[in-house]
């Protein structure tokens, strides 16, 4: 079974991102970039499937400029077998990414796609579901458990009221939630080995996909600031304030 994972290059989750003063965008100068945390969970899950003998090959794909190679190398160091970079200077929106991934899925004959449920920059939470729709595949979004058996995927999903389990025909798309697994750290020997693994580069034109954006960002701004209030000295004072000042209890 061939498994495809997608990894996105995003601002590291420890960086506090700020809007530029002129509202034209987000200040990304000299900011540390990393693999999107949900994508890292996707890589880990795919590698575990290969270690269990369920998957035969794990392909890591990233889409964007040349620098995305770094995140593919990270995925290879975590255990993915080979990488594909879809290189473009264009801004890629979720629908375009889904179409590019669909083209790769068709080319490679993939049985299972595992992607993060959302990236921590755009917070869109779309790509996996869109890919599933375009490719006519089943989907198990927000997965906290994934079991492959009898040619099907059984996915436990984190939903608003608790957990839901669905059974999916393969090929399927699974999107990862936080508690699916805890990704390993790449060891130094594996980081060295990853440098020698195969990494192919394609362009959107090679895949025949129109990636023109469907949405424009007109401006970005900081959210309304919330001011710190006061410190109270005791529970009695707190209850008094809530009752008589804030009037919320």
């Amino acid at each position, binding site marked *: 079974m061939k498994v495809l994972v997608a990894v996105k290059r995003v601002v590291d989750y420890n960086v506090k991102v700020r809007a530029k003063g002129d509202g034209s965008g987000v200040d990304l100068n000299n900011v540390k970039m990393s693999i999107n945390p949900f994508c890292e969970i996707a890589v880990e899950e795919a590698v575990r499937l290969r270690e269990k003998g369920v998957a035969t090959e794990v392909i890591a794909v990233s889409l964007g400029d040349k620098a995305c190679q770094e995140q593919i190398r990270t995925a290879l160091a975590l255990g993915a077998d080979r990488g594909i970079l879809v290189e473009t200077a264009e801004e890629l929106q979720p629908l375009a990414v889904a179409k590019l991934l669909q083209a790769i899925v068709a080319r490679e004959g993939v049985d299972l796609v595992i992607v993060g449920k959302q990236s921590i920059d755009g917070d869109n939470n779309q790509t*996996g579901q869109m890919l599933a729709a375009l490719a006519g595949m089943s989907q198990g979004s927000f997965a906290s458990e994934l079991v492959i058996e009898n040619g099907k995927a059984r996915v436990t999903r984190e939903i608003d009221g608790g957990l839901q389990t669905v059974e999916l025909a393969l090929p399927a798309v699974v999107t990862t939630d936080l508690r699916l697994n805890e990704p390993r750290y790449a060891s130094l020997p594996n980081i060295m080995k990853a440098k020698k693994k195969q990494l192919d580069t394609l362009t959107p034109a090679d895949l025949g996909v129109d990636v023109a954006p469907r949405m424009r960002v007109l401006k970005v701004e900081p959210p309304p600031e919330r001011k710190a209030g006061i410190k109270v000295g005791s*529970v009695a004072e707190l209850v008094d304030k*809530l009752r008589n000042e804030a009037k919320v209890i």
Partner: protein
Amino acid sequence: MSTLVIAEHSNNELKSATHHTVTAAQALGGEVHVLVAGGGCQAAAEAAARIPGVAKVLVADNAAYAHQLAENMSALIAELGTGYDYLLAPATSNGKNVMPRVAALLDVAQISEITAVISGDTFQRPIYAGNVIATVQSTDARKVITVRTTGFDAAPAEGGSAAIEAVSIAKDAGLSSFVGESLAKSDRPELTAARVVVSGGRGMQNGENFKLLEAVADKLNAAVGASRAAVDAGFVPNDYQVGQTGKIVAPDLYIAVGISGAIQHLAGMKDSKVIVAINKDEDAPIFQVADYGLVADLFQAVPELAAAL
């Protein structure tokens, strides 16, 4: 111009997320219809018809939609959707699961989790875990949108009398099937609809200690939530999680207990009207957003609070 709102419901009950989404739909102008797709969902459809401002309720009552499976729901919505300018769903786990699939089937972008309608094609939405608010303009003719419910007031539940129309489209993609679910059973209000929320973090130390919060919640008719740290540590189930990747809440009163206040958590609760923080670390970032901060050992303060209410 017309808008179709995809209802959030549990077949026998319409969820308040639907009422918030109707308000967002009304901000777009034009006629508002509500789709209730489910299995045995007549009661939810009748409730939707009572929302003032809703012109028509479409009911697709079919076993294929009983569990809101994305493959079936998206096929139905995409087919109905060609008759509308806007397709709106609340950004619940259902909405987030189904709507991107609808957008792809219609070959349009999805505008995720809008918090404000600026004009017919321009919307505000938070990005980077709420650290940045983006104003985005969609160039697609038909717009598929998920709505962050805390950005819009709930439409009234009573007062309307919309026509209810049955939809006979049956879409069973045959790709997925429902196996089971484990839903939290609680007499308390739902997290996203509660007027008061009491949340615990890593400082609670274990799941057993959440009973202390429940005692406070019982007095205030509050929902109980948690930070990601508390969920990851296994103190409480995933559906308790408040934060950017969990539930977004904006109650009248939010009481954060033993929560340090990671950006991720603040993104899920900072629109609450009044925030109370109880933490023994006086430098915890949660105090920077709290209206009332109490630096204290929660194991003393919380029982004392429960007794004082």
